[in-house]
Every structure is written in structure tokens, then in C-alpha cells.
């Protein structure tokens, strides 16, 4: 019961080289897997491949095995993909359907597409809104939400399909610190309360330090590092791969580079 990629290679249609080269990855329900990498290292492609959208929706060529719960993604019809794996992207505004007048209906967009009966739709909508913590946004106009709120609503509307896995491609990149914290906390809550497996691509190593269990590092289309979050984020190779480590790690590195000791009292996050 996992999303599993084994030695996956992927190339976009018409591209001259592979976007992903030999990726091994495993995402289990209830776990948060962080993905970091420099820009253009293949993070977005990885999200699409893991979620089955590549090659399903965007075309291209996939080699070797990408499976969701044991089934090859290429053999899952597109609309069924959404039931297994919810995908979220950077820009909150483009993820809204623009056909609904209230957040309630927006979150219900997915279940309505599936043709569920109204009572089921209602139940799912409230469940999703609660899981993300945005019930009070239900009557609002989706077009008038702030960036952070928009992302939360998009998260709820994907959750309403009750997917077992969630894949998020830099959901906080356009948010300020407050919005980022909102989304990070909501994700942690979703993972623990709904048991969904979450794959989170992030620039902000801080976010991953906070909520990720494991982290993999992408460099030029392949996995450069993988392991428990704390260990990977502290690895010196991050800098060479063009990734900013969490502030605490970066500071520790600077201190040691100056020949000083890192004070023990800072080993845990200060108050």
C-alpha cells in the first residue's frame, strides 16, 4: 500500500533529454515525504509522475515502473487517478474551478464531478473543510481569498475526493510566513487525522524540517540523497546541490566554518 517508483525514467514529449533519470521513491500512507531540489531539477515532473498525471494527462514517455497501490499509473484512467492521488500546485488562483460562487461549492466540485448524491457531497465537503480547518470560509467567494486561504481551499477541494495520497508542488512558494505556517500546519494535521500519505515539494527547508518524516533531494533529474528528514536536511551536500538548508543548520555550518563550537543549548530549537 504505497506509491512506488522504481528506476523511473521520464521524458516530456518532444524533449531532447530525460527530465527524470532513474528515480526510486516510496510514499506510504500517514507519512510525509519531503522533496527538495534546485529549480529545474525535476521536482514538478516528479509530482506529475508520482501522481500518474505524467504521462496520463501531459503525455511524454515513462519507463520502468510507477505504481500506486500496486497498480501501474499508466493503466489507471485519468479521472480515477484523482481518487487515489490528489495533486496541488503553486498557484492557488489557477486551481479554482472558476465556476462556483462559494467555497462550499468549490470544495464540492470534485464530489459533484463524481456524481455522488447530494447528502454524500455535503458530508464530504464539511469533512474536508474541517480537516483543513477552514469551515468558516465556506460562504466566501473563492475568487476573493488571499493566497494562503486559496491554497487551503484548494487543499480541501482535493481532499474531498478522499484520496489516499496527496502530492503538493511548492504550495507555499507564493505565500508569506504566516500563510506558509497555515498550510504547513494544515498538512501535518491532514496527515495525522486522515492517514493520507503526503509528498511535499518545497523550497523552504524550514517547512520540511517541521513536518516531513523523510526527505529526498533531487539533482538534475535523479535522487541525490534520501533518508530521514533531520539527517538529510543537515547534510552538507545540500549546498552543493543548490539548496538552502534550514536556518539553524546553515548557521551551525557557518559557526563551525569559523572554527567555533556549536553551543549545545541550541541543539533544540530555542523558545
Amino acid at each position: 500500500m504505497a506509491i512506488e517508483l522504481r528506476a523511473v525514467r521520464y521524458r516530456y514529449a518532444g524533449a531532447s533529454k530525460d527530465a527524470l533519470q532513474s528515480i526510486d521513491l516510496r510514499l506510504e500512507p500517514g507519512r510525509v515525504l519531503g522533496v527538495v531540489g534546485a529549480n529545474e531539477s525535476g521536482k514538478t515532473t516528479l509530482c506529475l509522475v508520482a501522481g500518474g498525471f505524467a504521462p496520463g494527462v501531459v503525455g511524454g514517455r515513462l519507463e520502468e515502473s510507477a505504481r500506486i497501490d500496486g497498480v501501474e499509473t499508466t493503466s489507471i484512467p485519468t479521472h480515477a487517478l484523482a481518487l487515489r492521488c490528489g495533486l496541488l500546485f503553486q498557484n492557488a488562483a489557477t486551481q479554482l474551478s472558476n465556476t462556483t460562487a462559494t467555497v462550499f461549492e468549490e470544495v464540492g466540485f470534485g464530489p459533484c464531478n463524481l456524481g455522488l448524491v447530494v447528502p454524500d457531497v455535503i458530508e464530504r465537503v464539511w469533512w474536508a473543510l474541517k480537516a483543513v480547518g477552514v469551515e468558516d470560509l465556506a460562504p466566501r467567494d473563492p475568487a476573493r481569498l488571499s493566497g494562503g486561504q486559496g491554497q487551503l481551499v484548494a487543499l480541501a477541494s482535493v481532499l474531498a475526493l478522499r484520496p489516499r495520497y496527496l502530492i503538493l508542488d511548492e504550495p507555499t512558494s507564493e505565500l508569506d510566513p504566516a500563510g506558509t505556517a497555515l498550510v504547513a500546519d494544515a498538512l501535518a494535521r491532514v496527515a495525522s487525522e486522515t492517514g493520507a500519505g503526503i509528498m511535499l515539494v518545497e523550497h523552504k527547508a524550514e517547512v520540511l524540517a517541521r513536518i516531513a518524516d523523510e526527505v529526498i533531494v533531487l539533482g538534475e533529474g535523479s535522487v541525490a540523497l534520501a533518508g530521514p528528514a533531520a539527517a538529510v536536511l543537515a547534510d552538507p551536500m545540500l549546498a552543493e546541490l543548490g539548496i538552502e538548508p534550514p536556518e539553524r543548520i546553515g548557521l551551525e555550518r557557518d559557526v563551525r566554518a569559523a572554527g567555533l563550537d556549536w553551543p549545545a543549548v541550541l541543539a533544540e530549537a530555542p523558545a
Partner: protein
Amino acid sequence: MSGHDRRLDHSAPAASAGATADSGSSGSAGAGNGSTWSGSAQAGRSAAPSSADPAAPSGAPSAAPSIELEGVSFSYPDGTPALENIELRIDPGELVAIVGQNGSGKSTLARHLNGLLRPTAGRILLGGRDVRGLHVARLAERVGLAFQNPDRQLFAGRVSAEVAFGPRNLGLRGAELDERVRAALDAVGLSAEAASNPYDLGYSRRKLLSLASVLAMRTPILVLDEPTTGQDARGAARVRAVVAVAAGEGRTVIAISHDMRFVAECFRRVVVMRAGRVVLDGTPDVVFGEATWPELRAAYLEPPFAALAGARLGLGATPSAASFVAALGQRARNA
């Protein structure tokens, strides 16, 4: 400052040691010093430089005008208030970061600096003169504003054409224009992509391209809207290098940001905004010092980790990594 220098991309133009932001130093640096941008900004224009007249084009960075906001208020046409009675003075050569959460008015304030928005009350002075009657196109000679989203600007088929757009609008042609383009691309590390299509570059580099297109205008005042947001480590390092070089040339650099570490590392003055008002204004030492943390948090901001760590160890104000390392080293030596 070994810890700090390591962050700079080593292929960036050499920045003078005095230009790197250090919380201890203050005041503006001198005129340009051996960077790839040396020389006056707008040789294409013939008007004599005059620091008192903001409309007269002047290239020499030391003639950067001051900016003053006097009682500036702004409400959007639909009535939403965005700025309330802002009093702010930015002197030539200052490195100022304007911080706040989304909606605090910082971007709105940035757009007032080059005339894209006009205050509904109060006035804005550039070099002592009211900018009320001046078109944005004229103000663009003095105040360059780099936007947060590069995709709202890029339109040319080639990177070099994109960078040439700004200086061309300012009247430059020929060899002078080519030199500007070359220097700007060099400063952001995109020289190899001069003939590429902007949309073939990834987001990070498109953002650097958009920055280059403003740098090429060689304005004495540079305003950067969220320059590190969405950037990876290399891109962010480039931005820091660009800020350092501009500072070394005596330009006024104003950044809108919610990246507190970038702010602490590169700027000498921090203006905190909340709900359209300025709530804090001082050096990073002061603004990120323990005494003002409650106020910062009330503005939905968190001090940089170095400040938190420094406070935890009782080292005093250490907003940047460099200052933290220095203070720690000082303590070790005294022990």
C-alpha cells in the same frame, strides 16, 4: 566575515568588503569601485546632472536623490485603505528593507516610489521635489522597480532584447546599449543565455532576467519586490550579490520582502509595516532585537534564526549569521 562570504556565488562581480551589510556599520558607501558596472549610468543623455531636479536624468550614483513620503495615505478606487499616513525618509545610498505580511501595504508602498500609484493624501518628494506631475516613464529614469512575478514582464523573443527594453526606453542606442545589456546579464549570471528565449529559462532564471532588465537601466534608486521569493539557493545568492554591488556603487536599494534572513544579511535599515502603517523602523539590530519581538510577531513576522539563537545565548543583537558568528567568536576569545 568568512561565513557570510561563503554564501556569495564566487562568480559574481567582486563586491567591496564595505558593501556587504554588516549590522555594525552604517552610512552609505562611496562611489563605484571596480565592479563590472563602473561608469556613469546614462551617458546617452546630454542633460547635466542635477541632484536637485528629479526629472533631469543623472547617472552618477552619488547623485541618487533622497525619497520622502510625507503623510502619504492611499486607498484603492473601491475604497479599500492600503496606506495610512506614512512618514518615511530614505537618504541617498541607504539599504532599506520594507517588511510585513501580505496585505500590510508594502507592495503598495513600493508602487508609490516610482509613480505607478499616486497617494490619495500626502505627497512624495524625490530629491526634494514633488513628483506629482511627473509621468512614470520619467520617474523610471531615477527609480527602477523590479517586479515579483517575472512573467508579467517578459515579452521579447530573446533574453538580450528583454534586457535592452528598459534602457532603450530611456533613449540609449548602439554600443552604449549593448554594453549595458552585457553588464546587466553578467551581474545576474545569464551571459551565456543572451540569445535564448526567456521562456526556455526556468522560473529562477526568469526572475533574475527580470532583475537584469531593471539593472540595465542603471537607476540611482533600485526597488526590488520580493526578489528572493521562489528563488532557489543559487538564485538567492545572486540576488544578494546584486544588492551588494549596487550598494557598493552608492545606489539606494529598497527591497520589499518577507524573507527575514535576506533582510538581516543585506540591509542596514528595516521598516516593518502592518495594516498600512509603519510600526517599526531601525537597524536590523534594533528591529530584530529581543525587545521588539512582540511587535514583530504582532505583525505576523518572525525574527531570523540568528537573532533567536543570539538571544538564547545572551549574545546581544545578532540578526545576521555574520554578526552571530562574530559575537560567538568574541565570547570564545574573552572566555
